[in-house]
């Protein structure tokens, strides 16, 4: 579903991502772990076609992000680490706007908005301007908008930040459901316990380079993901 080959991104003379390669198959929840400034967000943005990169190749469902950006964007959804949405719109107008742009049919958008808004207990607030939303409510709205067009690949940057425990639980369930239906998820997180329980595969990145990757069992063995991460951080310090 997502294939990253030798991805390299420079900021001036600094390599933010250094020949990174990884592959995500349909049905997989793939965790992306690393310290602050390791290159996670840069990688994620490059995958979504919102940041150009210097070397390498990113393919989504076999299509190159550079060559066919629009086709790639049609089947993926991105949720940023900070849900900056159009504050002058109400929640429902924002969702309708996103549905219009992705060409979601009238029936499907009405059903999905009702389903997800009820699930996240956001229905009553949909008429409110987004400027009146809390951080968590904006995050919920960003998640609903990402799910409206039934993406095959969901790319998320720190998706649990700002969510209450109930909403976080719902998001985890939705993530699993999307993958069970043949989709794939690539997300970054600093919450290693969540990654350990939720992810099928995990990659650890440091200073732009991939330092470990594999199934959760392969990566953590008999210890915890936290121990592995801290050990790797120490080794390469």
């Amino acid at each position: 579903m997502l294939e990253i080959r030798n991805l390299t991104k420079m900021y001036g003379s600094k390599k933010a991502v250094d020949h990174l390669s990884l592959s995500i198959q349909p049905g997989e929840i793939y965790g992306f772990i690393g310290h602050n400034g390791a290159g996670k967000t840069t990688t994620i943005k490059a995958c979504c076609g919102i940041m150009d990169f210097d070397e390498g190749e990113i393919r989504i469902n076999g299509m190159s992000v550079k060559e066919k950006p629009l086709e790639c964007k049609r089947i993926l959804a991105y949720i940023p680490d900070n849900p900056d949405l159009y504050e002058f719109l109400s929640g429902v107008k924002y969702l309708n706007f996103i549905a219009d742009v992705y060409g979601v049919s009238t029936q499907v958008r009405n059903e999905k908005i009702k389903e997800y808004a009820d699930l996240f207990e956001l229905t009553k607030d949909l008429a409110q301007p987004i400027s009146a939303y809390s951080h968590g409510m904006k995050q919920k709205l960003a998640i609903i908008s990402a799910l409206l067009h039934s993406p095959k690949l969901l790319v998320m940057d720190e998706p649990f930040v700002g969510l209450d425990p109930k909403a976080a639980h719902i998001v985890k369930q939705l993530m699993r459901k999307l993958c069970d239906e043949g989709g794939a998820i690539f997300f970054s997180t600093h919450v290693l316990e969540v990654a350990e329980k939720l992810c099928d595969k995990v990659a650890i990145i440091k200073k732009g380079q991939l330092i470990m990757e594999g199934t959760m069992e392969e990566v953590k063995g008999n210890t915890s993901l936290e121990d592995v991460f801290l050990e790797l951080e120490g080794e390469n310090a």
Partner: protein
Amino acid sequence: MLKTLIKIRFQSMFASMFRSSKKGKTVGVGMKVLMGILILYIVAVFAMLFGSVFLMIRDSFCAMGLGWLYFAMAGLFAFAICFVGSIFMTQSQLYEAKDNEMLLAMPVPPSYILLSRMVALMLINYLYELVIMIPAGVIYVIGQPVTALGVVAYVAVVVLLPFMVMTVSCIFGWLVALISSRMRRKNLIITVLSVALFCGYMAVCTQLYSYMEMLVNNGAQIGEAIRKSLFPIYHLGMAIAGPSALSLLFFVLCALIPFGLVYYLLSKNFVSIATTKRGTVRVEYKAKRLKASGAVKALTVKELRRLGGNAMYIMNACSGSLLIILAVVAVIWQYDDVAALIEMSEQMGIGDAANGVLWALAAAIFGACSTMNIVSASSISLEGKNLWILKTLPIPAGKILVSKILAHVIASAPVAILAALVCLFVIPFSLNGFLMALILPLIVNVWQGVFGVVINLLYPRFDWVSETACVKQSVSVMITMFGGMAFAAIPILLYVFVFKETVGLVLYVWLCAAVFVVLCIALLRYLVTAGAKRFARL
């Protein structure tokens, strides 16, 4: 600490004027010089306008022993221009700045935060004020005797008048925020009020000379009315022209005591004022069937909602349309004069020719006003932190840019069309003339939309603290605004100095329309090709 806060505020202000991209690159020296020249040009135009007014009233007032009224009028003009020019910035900088919460979380006294913002706003007020007070002072010195106390009083007035403006702006901004927090349709109400304020201001400006004549003829009565009802302004005038030390003292107290009180009250309540969420009258969502539309339409509607939800944006970006409305109202108001003019031309046997000229003039006026519409000039910058949404959408960048142009045209063209339709009732019908008055302003509006997007694409700015800075002060807005003036002035000057004898006015207007069409096509081609690539790299 206060010095640091003021420094940051000034850095933010100048950055919004001279920094262009999110990478923080500053605009080139050539561009800075060009902007400086253009700003000086505007200042010179206003200074000359007010200078001529002061020249008109000086001798009459002084001859009547109403020298104080001369400076009182200068003070009133300066007060009005400062108030209209800074009211939106006062509201957004003091009460709605995005960095309020961040600064309040630091060990910084709220009074310092407030003062640093006020100092920055005062600087803007001083700039507005000097455009009026310098010509007033110079014209007075040229023709009237000056005393040392008068000069001291003049300097004191120049220094202290912005304090008065600040006091009123703070109270007005606070009242608007307070009232609007209790209303559901607050944006609509603020927009209507702002438009009314702007129209009133423009109506006064357009009738300035006749008001001045009225002032000259009825100086004594008006002076008496000001002395009784606007006593700080009376003492302002008396302090300089008297000159009167007592009036100066009274004016100083009138400027500083209310300011001190407002500053004290605001600083005491700054935390609650800055952190209270306004405009959140709770509306519970009642599910209704949502309708689907195309992507470009959705993007265009989104742009229009951003515009419609922000009175300050409308006021600054649609001033050309507002002027057209004023012009149309004025024509209807003065219908008898226009009708008499037309009848007279028909009696003189030049009816058809005169009608053609009238239509051409209407087209030229509406077209020139349309160059003042700059909705699209900040439309890319206004995406700010929301830019990621557009960049992740499966829509070609060219369509995104076109939607911004469409929003500009939809926001500005209806007024131009309406104006042409109104002309049908005023100017005798001529198909050629009507089409001219209809099509030229439409083409100019499309041109301004395209031009604004191109300039904003070349000089985007995403790290603004308040939308006001983005809409009023950014490089792209200034270039588009001055560019618009040039696009209005160049064809007029070319006609007056080059083509007047060789090309008829009607034909000339059509030729101008054709040139704008060619320019539009050229820039649109750039936008959907190289421009789209540039947008993708933002």
